């Protein structure tokens, strides 16, 4: 990639190139990160919201800045996608990032840091710098929104960089293909978007025809396609490109994902589970309303001043 441009004798460059290689040969479903074409000290990343949290299914983009002294000095992280846990465009305060430079150690890597970042998302912010403490519902809504399109970053001039935009869009699609849809919040009523999601999920049932080879598992492409179908708001570049996300990542040096039997099954069970959940939620809501009505009626009768009450309201 950038081998010719950089001084390979520079230890930081050497190390960073090794990390790029490692990142490419061991892709993760939970995150993706690569340096920008023009500067290997600046990386774009996207992480998947952690499971069993209000961030599940969300795709959060961000930037990593590696210092010239890397790996002796820690990388800095900032998120670009509104998420309700960290302020966007603000360096993140993690014990692994440079808010606490003394805690960083050279045996860590961009990969370690991203894993830590994901783990930090559901933790209480405790007033840490750059942290947000949004309600679950708000974070959930942001998770749904996060899937629609990658965020913009930087000045208008910077946004004109087509390559960078394409790159970010590719990362977004890759993550979409890996991230399961946003599940509904167990405590709240389903929203419109969620209804839309489950419609999409229904289609997955018919789409388990993806063929199968042994090897490291990646979830299936059907999911990625579905997401594009159900979300017309996805960026134009993404829709216009005829290649599936995986193929384009291959073009950038990403190994193609391999599908396994096991993982193709996964969306199905998930669909089952989430529609069950939905039924139960509705039933619970119905019951609650019925009980409330009864109680209210009784209250009106027994206190005998229903009329006054009505007038007052």
């Amino acid at each position, binding site marked *: 990639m950038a081998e010719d441009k950089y001084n390979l004798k520079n*230890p930081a460059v*050497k*190390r960073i190139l*090794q*990390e790029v*290689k*490692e990142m490419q040969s061991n892709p993760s479903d939970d995150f993706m990160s690569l340096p920008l074409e023009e500067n290997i000290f600046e990386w774009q990343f996207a992480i998947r919201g952690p499971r069993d949290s209000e961030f599940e299914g969300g795709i959060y983009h961000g930037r990593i*800045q590696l*210092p010239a002294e890397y*790996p*002796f*000095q820690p990388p*800095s992280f900032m998120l670009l996608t509104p998420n309700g846990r960290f302020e966007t*465009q*603000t*360096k993140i305060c993690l014990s692994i990032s*440079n*808010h606490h*430079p*003394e*805690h*960083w*150690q*050279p*045996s*860590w*890597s961009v*990969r370690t840091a991203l894993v830590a970042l994901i783990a930090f998302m559901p933790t209480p912010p405790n007033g840490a*710098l750059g942290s947000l403490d949004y309600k679950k519902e708000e974070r959930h809504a942001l998770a749904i929104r996060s899937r629609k399109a990658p965020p913009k*970053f*930087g*000045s*208008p001039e*910077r946004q004109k960089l087509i390559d960078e935009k394409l790159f970010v869009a590719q990362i977004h699609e890759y993550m979409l293909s890996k991230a399961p849809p946003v599940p509904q919040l167990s405590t709240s009523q389903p929203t419109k978007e969620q209804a839309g999601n489950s419609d999409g999920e229904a289609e997955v049932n018919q789409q388990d025809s993806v063929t199968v080879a042994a090897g490291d598992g990646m979830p299936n492409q059907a999911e990625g396609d579905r997401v594009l179908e159900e979300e017309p708001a996805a960026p134009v570049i993404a829709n216009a490109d005829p290649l599936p996300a995986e193929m384009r990542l291959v073009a950038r040096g990403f190994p193609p994902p391999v599908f396994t039997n096991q993982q193709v099954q996964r969306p199905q069970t998930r669909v089952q589970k989430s529609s069950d959940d939905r039924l139960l939620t509705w039933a619970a809501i119905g019951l609650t309303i019925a009980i409330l009505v009864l109680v209210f009626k009784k209250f009106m009768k027994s206190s005998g001043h229903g009329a006054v009450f009505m007038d007052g309201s």
Partner: protein
Amino acid sequence: MQNQEGAVPDGEKESAISIPISEFDDWTNFADDDIMQQQSAIHAEEANKIHFVGDKEPLSMLAAEYESGSPILLEKIKVLDQQYAAIRRTRGDGNCFFRSFMFSYLEHILESQDRAEVDRIKGNVEECRKTLQSLGYADFTFEDFFALFLEQLDSVLQGNEDSISQDELIIKSRDQSISDYVVMFFRFVTSGEIRKRSDFFEPFILGLTNATVEQFCKSSVEPMGEESDHVHITALSDALGVPIRVVYLDRSSCDSAGVSVNHHDFVPTSGDHSNATSGSTEPARPFITLLYRPGHYDILYPK
């Protein structure tokens, strides 16, 4: 040690100005950079005072330091003066033990041209590499540091294209991009050894910090600038198979029989024997001698 409170005027100016969103490309706009800048400013200041590895000084320079100080220390320095010819100071940045060890070891190889010793330590380094791999470290996280140490080792052996002289060794040892990498190599080796033999090290670590072996390695061994004590020294000496003598210069007073200076030899053990303090089985006197003053290590040269 390092004063975190010192002001860094440059950084503060920036963070005070509110920044329009369009300029967020510029990563230097954030308050944390102030901290980082401040740190490096402190380091730079420290660097002006003393190199990572200083020049060889006669032991009388040490005495001069305590001229108006504790009489016990002066007495002890007199005793030291009978056995040791010179001292070489290292920078007090928390890495002094490792830097002292590095210079002292490489200097010994340079002077002795002991190829057998080089072959031996390379075998141990290979073992350390395997240890780290088996502990689950990703290769790329330590391999640069290993490579750099082996490069230094080869360069002090004469007759190669890249062979270096004593002066060049000093220059290299003062080069941050080399010195820090070698320090980090030692930290990896130390951490790997402690984790590998966690049962052996656990009681020492518990007595020291009340932390688990894992926590100790994470917080006190692997991060740069964390000071070393006997746990680190034992682990490094064992892992590399290099005996180390540490001479203690502190205020601990002696009985009326006279002033003496304590020392402890860290003799590498293969297997599960514990460290012996100068027993009769001890093969030879360690060729690395360090002077310990509370919180700091320097290099000592015997007469």
